[in-house]
């Protein structure tokens, strides 16, 4: 069957897609908690203030969560997060480092016609796909270690444009 086309998330998605605690996959300060943050940029290098970022990941043991209730924040690690960026284009999640090469990420924004899939690779981890990229492309997919976690910017266009993905 042919797929249903995507459309932009538009400007007014906040109240439709708001999730309480959407960025808190774990409590800040809990054992193993890391801060995963970054800025979403447009092709002029300006921050995008009306973007939505979703992440989906395995837990610290590499297990993909399957328990029902991915929005729940009751101490069970559900692996899914969703945040609206700030007016400065910043997103922030509190999560754990998965025992995996990467965290899956999707970005939506006003002005962006369709969602964009990408990956946030953990520093020091790699796979055949990452190695197949040239160094400049690869750099757009690998997070940077910070004092309390990881930093990873998403650039929708321009120099250092993030590598986005399609699937067969």
């Amino acid at each position: 069957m042919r797929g249903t086309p995507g459309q932009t998330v538009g400007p007014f998605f906040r109240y439709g897609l708001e999730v309480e605690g959407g960025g808190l996959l774990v409590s800040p300060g809990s054992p193993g908690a890391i801060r995963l943050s970054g800025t979403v940029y447009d092709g002029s290098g300006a921050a995008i203030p009306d973007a939505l970022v979703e992440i989906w990941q395995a837990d610290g043991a590499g297990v993909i969560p399957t328990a029902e209730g991915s929005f729940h924040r009751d101490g069970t690690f559900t692996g899914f997060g969703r945040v609206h960026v700030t007016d400065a284009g910043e997103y922030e999640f509190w999560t754990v480092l998965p025992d995996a090469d990467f965290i899956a990420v999707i970005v939506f924004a006003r002005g962006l016609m369709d969602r964009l899939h990408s990956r946030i690779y953990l520093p020091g981890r790699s796979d055949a796909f990452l190695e197949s990229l040239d160094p400049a492309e690869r750099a757009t997919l690998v997070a940077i270690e910070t004092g309390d976690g990881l930093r990873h910017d998403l650039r929708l266009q321009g120099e250092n444009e993030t590598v986005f993905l399609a699937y067969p």
Partner: protein
Amino acid sequence: MTETTQATISAEIAALHSDYDKRRAAGMPPLDSPLVDFAPYRSSVLRHPTKNPKLVDPESIELASPAFGHRDVAAVESDLTVQHAGEPLGERMVVTGRVLDGEGRPVRHQLVEVWQANASGRYIHQRDQHPAPLDPNFTGAGRCITDADGRYSFTTIKPGAYPWKNHVNAWRPAHIHFSVFGSAFTQRLVTQMYFPVDPLFPLDPIYQSIPDQAARDRLVAAYDHDLSSPEWSLGYRWDIVLTGPRATWIEPEGSDA
């Protein structure tokens, strides 16, 4: 404020569609997605990738999906007309359909979220400056979990068309925003559902960002009289098929990628 006219926008849309039609005639397969580089939607100019997406085999995390369920969503959230003390103004309607994967299999027990303007074409969002009345009895956001057949259903009111500032006298055709999860994270989709025979279709650069007419048609719900309830509400049917982002055509003609 832009001085761009509808005639300018319409001419740009026609040129981009004509380019697509030529590529189709030359053998390019049909496109099931919007063109991300679609300047008639002015806000898109600096917000689209200029490189083709990289084709990659999904890993296990991407082949799995978050597991939403009735712990996340209360049954009442699928009725947008009962969220306040009174009933909202507007044409009461039910919209229902199935969420399917590319093989036609139902996407079971998965999350569907919607948001929309009220009957006057006004969003409750604080940045919506359209001088149409807010409805104290309508928020315009709903959620539900698909059933074992992949079926979702919302009760709501028909949203109004609304103006936006893309160009002079720009109006969005009435639509409901849909956010859908599949059985794999690769199938994640956010889109908009439209209503039959809207006269604003040819003028709207967001709807027309999908260059393929058959693909555009798939965003339009069908009026279904069997779904209408006597003395109560009108019914619309709209199915959603989740296939995930395919390698899309962005690169110049002649490329073999």
